[in-house]
């Protein structure tokens, strides 16, 4: 059973979204891709659990 939380869980959604976009402001496509890759790895480490990570990757790949 997946432990992935697909219910709303972000404390301040609008703030989070704005912060995420701000990190990419003025960056080239390549720089942005690098930021995203680092962010995925940092968040993945925060989660840690294999089942949850697998469920998240599968959900993302579904599109």
């Amino acid at each position, binding site marked *: 059973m997946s432990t992935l939380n697909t219910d709303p869980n972000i404390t301040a959604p609008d703030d989070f979204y704005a912060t995420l976009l701000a990190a990419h402001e003025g960056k080239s496509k390549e720089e942005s*891709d*690098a930021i995203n*890759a*680092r962010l*995925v*790895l*940092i968040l993945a*480490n925060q989660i840690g659990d294999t089942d949850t990570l697998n469920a998240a990757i599968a959900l993302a790949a579904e599109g």
Partner: protein
Amino acid sequence: MFDDRYSLAHKIYPYEKHADQDKAEAVRHPVVVVGGGPIGVATALDLGMQDIPVVVLDDHEGIGMGSRAICFAKRCLEVADRYGCGEPMLEKGVVWNLGKVFHKEGKIYEFNLLPEEGHKYPAFINLQQPYFERFMVDRLRALQAEGKPIEIRGKNRVDNIEVKDDHVVLDVMTPDGPYKIEADWLVAADGANSPTRDMLGLDFTGKVFQDSFLIADIRMKNVEFPTERWFWFDPTHGSGASTLLHKQPDDVWRIDFQIGWDVDRKEEMKEENIRRRLDAMLGDVEYEMVWSSIYTFQCKRMETFRHGPVLFAGDAAHQVSPFGARGANSGMQDVDNLGWKLGMVLKGQAPVALLDSYSEERVHGADENILNSTRSTDFITPKTEISKTFRDAVLTLAAKHAFARPLVNSGRLSVPCVYDGLSLNGPDQLPGGPERTRVGAPMVDAPLGNDWLLGQVGGHFTLLTIDADAPESLDVDGVDVTRLALSAEGNPELAERYLGDAKAAVYLIRPDQHVAARWERFDTASVRRAVNIATARA
């Protein structure tokens, strides 16, 4: 007719005409091994020590030049130890524990392997392959002197193989012309390009990696270089797309440069061009070139390693990328697995089906090795834009944050595979027993006074009892099981590695030192059943 394919480091089994060559009828041997490399010679040691006559045929007269496989892992050394040639390897080899990882212009972090105490052999040693082979052939000669039935025939090239139901017929070419011999069993240890595999028309499938690597072995002059492993990703000094440096005995350093797929090999192999790369990396140091070579690699295996009376071992059966040192190391584990099984079948103690378990277990091992080395390859040489993006993200984060370091994959150290869930496994009934010595696992070494646990087992079935009663020996329908009685009192390593939370334990150990079954206490019927399972007689 007999052009050498490579030059020799040691010509130690020169051609000599054998009586078999003058016989009108082909002489039948129980076992013929094709290939006198490390895997073929190990097979001869294993069988010879069991007093099973074995003939090794090699199309050269000794050991090839070049350092080649230079990392020999613990399990491989333990197998060599069982064959009586591990100690000289350890004595000659270089042990390192400190590794440094570089990205672009600088070092991003370093790691210490912090080896666990209480093992005869370290996690691995660096040793040039010709030494490794030489120590094994020395041992082979010593066994011959003791009267063990081992033969090695140089410049004996197998040109044709006819496979019958219960034997093979070989056409062998020598400097004195051709002759025929027969074998009940043929072990093909003739390397990644196995002529045996081709002659039998068997598939070898998998993935070819489009990259090449330049190896340079150099001897430093007047410079003290530390005994460490250095791995560069994308070095800005421009010597290659990735570069690996580590130390070998005799003050020789091995440097591997990843140089891409579309390279002019002849041009790259010119000394001036190799020196250009070396100088870019090393700066202003003096060195002499010892050996160099260019290699490409593939991750492939045969579908099954047994084809009737023909058994494939080592690179002939499976090939991996060099990252993680899983080539020669896994080949030695093949032999470890095959030797006792072939011995029991030849002595009539086990059915031929036992040899199918060789394929089952070692295919499992090969798949694990291919998986690991493919993952390392994908990290070291990313093949798509996105995989490069993630790879670089890992390296960037690893420089500052410990969490990303386990993701850096510059080759995962070869560890022996555990035969989890496979056919020869008996019951695992030791509640609280350690995970690392579960059924299917190779035994973990532990100190026993001035000796070592692994030195006390192997070559036959052992009943290892720890603070548990059992008879001194058992005869299970012709298979001898000998007890090794130990106590964990005053031996914390033994307790930690074999008891865990249990108070006592009884382990059934296979001749290759893998755990066949384990219990809390001895029970005759259970042990008999487990021996029968482990010998494919159940």
